[in-house]
């Protein structure tokens, strides 16, 4: 990566807490590209939260340098730096004595925006994070955990900071709400394109959300840094492999899409084809059915036994395919479709257009 490309750059950052001999973070260097979500992942004691807090100077490094948008974070007062960096924490930390609207408007008020501008911005954010605007006048104690976390995100985004730091934001909410919030974050990130640093101990959360994952070992040692797919495909060492856990293939399949594997032309014939031609195709693909095409539309499938004595395959009684996916479908879901419908292949369609088929073998090759 070219110098200056990173939105956040850590240069040999070390933190030794007073009274401790071991480093919490050790000579950590890391470039976070702008507009991406980078997850810091590791077991407890790996210094991931410490690292995060050094970016907004809630913790000052013992040595090393942190550069945000080209300037050293120590070049200006900490409170000014922090107003330009959104911050979301696990316990949310909403101000209990302020209404939701006042909470969200915190940083704009600190920046001295006038009242009307703050109000307009709050209204905008409520929509952005999908909150009911009737909640604006409530106090945080009147909200559910999921609502509180949404308010926390809205508050962090209030002054439209280029950078967002999130410290295990979803580990205190129940699993169903967590999945919702994760999906919302992905949707939100599509819209706002912030540089997000996300701390979590949950590798699956990191795989789901992150563009890049940094895996840290105890003592703040960087074990591997790269795209989730890359980590799953080629773990740098045993520690990373263990941390990624079992079912690495399945996890990768969740990241890869049907469009990432070469499609098979599939066991299909045009409606005008003869039964003999159809049987030849079935034989080639080792199936006892054949898809019937009319132009680029797939009309359905015919069973081998129904073809005898027909002139054209199109005259056979056709069944609809139940096992179909789109190029954007995750491989893992495609596999699930194949397995649960007990076929060997799934039809790949895009806007009703037939693109081909994906067989279990191709999924396996893609994950190789």
């Amino acid at each position, binding site marked *: 990566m070219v110098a200056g490309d990173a939105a956040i750059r850590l240069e040999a950052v070390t933190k030794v807490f007073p009274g401790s001999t071991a480093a919490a973070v050790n000579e950590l260097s890391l470039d976070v590209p702008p507009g991406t979500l980078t997850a810091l992942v590791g077991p407890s004691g790996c210094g991931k939260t410490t690292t995060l807090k050094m970016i*907004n100077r*809630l913790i000052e490094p013992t040595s090393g340098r942190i550069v945000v948008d080209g300037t050293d974070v120590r070049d200006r007062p900490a*409170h*000014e*730096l*922090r*107003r330009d960096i959104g*911050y979301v*924490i*696990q*316990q*949310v*930390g*909403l*101000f*209990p*004595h*302020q209404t939701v609207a006042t909470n969200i408007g*915190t*940083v704009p008020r*600190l920046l001295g925006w006038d009242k009307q501008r703050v109000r307009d911005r709050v209204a905008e954010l409520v929509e952005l994070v999908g909150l009911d605007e009737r909640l604006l006048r*409530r*106090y945080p*104690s*009147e*909200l*559910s955990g999921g609502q509180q976390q949404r308010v*926390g995100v809205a*508050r962090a985004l209030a002054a439209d900071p280029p950078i967002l*730091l999130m410290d295990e934001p979803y580990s205190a909410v129940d699993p169903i709400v967590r999945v919702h919030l994760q999906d919302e974050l992905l949707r939100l990130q599509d819209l706002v394109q912030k540089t997000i640093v996300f701390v979590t101990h949950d590798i699956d959360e990191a795989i789901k959300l992150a563009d890049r994952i940094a895996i840290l070992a105890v003592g703040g040692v960087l074990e591997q840094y790269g795209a989730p797919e890359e980590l799953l495909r080629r773990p740098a060492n045993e520690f990373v492999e263990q941390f990624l856990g079992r079912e690495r293939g399945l996890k990768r399949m969740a990241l890869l899409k049907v469009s990432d594997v070469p499609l098979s032309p599939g066991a299909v014939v045009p409606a005008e084809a003869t039964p003999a031609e159809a049987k030849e195709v079935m034989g080639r693909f080792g199936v006892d059915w054949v898809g019937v095409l009319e132009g680029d539309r797939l009309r359905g499938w015919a069973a081998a036994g129904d073809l005898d004595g027909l002139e054209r395959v199109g005259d056979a009684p056709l069944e609809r395919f139940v096992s179909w996916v789109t190029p954007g479908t995750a491989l893992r879901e495609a596999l699930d479709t194949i397995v649960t419908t007990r076929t060997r292949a799934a039809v790949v369609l895009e806007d009703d257009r037939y693109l081909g088929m994906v067989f279990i073998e191709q999924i396996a090759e893609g994950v190789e």
Partner: protein
Amino acid sequence: MTRAVLAADAKSFLWWDWVDDHYDEIWQRTLEHLRLAGLALVIGFAISLVLALVALRFRRTYAPITWVTGILYTIPSLALFAFLVPITGLGTLTAEIGLVGYTLLILLRNIVAGVDGVPASVKEAADGMGYTSWRRVGAVDLRLATPTIIAGLRIAAVTTVGLVTITALVGAGGYGVLIDDGLSRRFNTPIVVGATLSIAMAVAFDLTLLGTERALTPWARRSRRR
């Protein structure tokens, strides 16, 4: 029977004729009492606030500060006034030194405890949002400590209103003058009037502060709706 006890003459428990004749004096003593107690609370709160902020900022000073205010608190009030009169003379100043001194420990402790009780996550979020440390103290820490601080003020207020009756001894006025007068003449009525009004004033202070707390902490009353 009741009339005989309550209203018959100067020997009775409460002689209304005396009360009727002394409305002006009772009113004057009330104002003096109110002023002495109110001033002591305001000054005591201001000093405690400064001490608390120092103790919160420089944690090591908390123990010595509590130690000094604790000693002040334990000095018997009569002894303290007796000690002060040769230095500061008779009057309001002497009274206030003593009264203020007795409020410090309670107020200081409650302010510090209140701020300590603010959830760490809230403080961390405030820092992370970019509050300067003093602004955070004012806008977040002290606001959230309000219930605990007012709890301290209520104790201090009730104690102080009672204690003001003693400051009559140093010539500062208040209901103590009435009580003193009654004691020296073996005359019940002023004692009963002074003591009763003093109690009433303590209750009034308490209720006012309770109302103030309610008004200042609207968030505390909303029930959890989910």
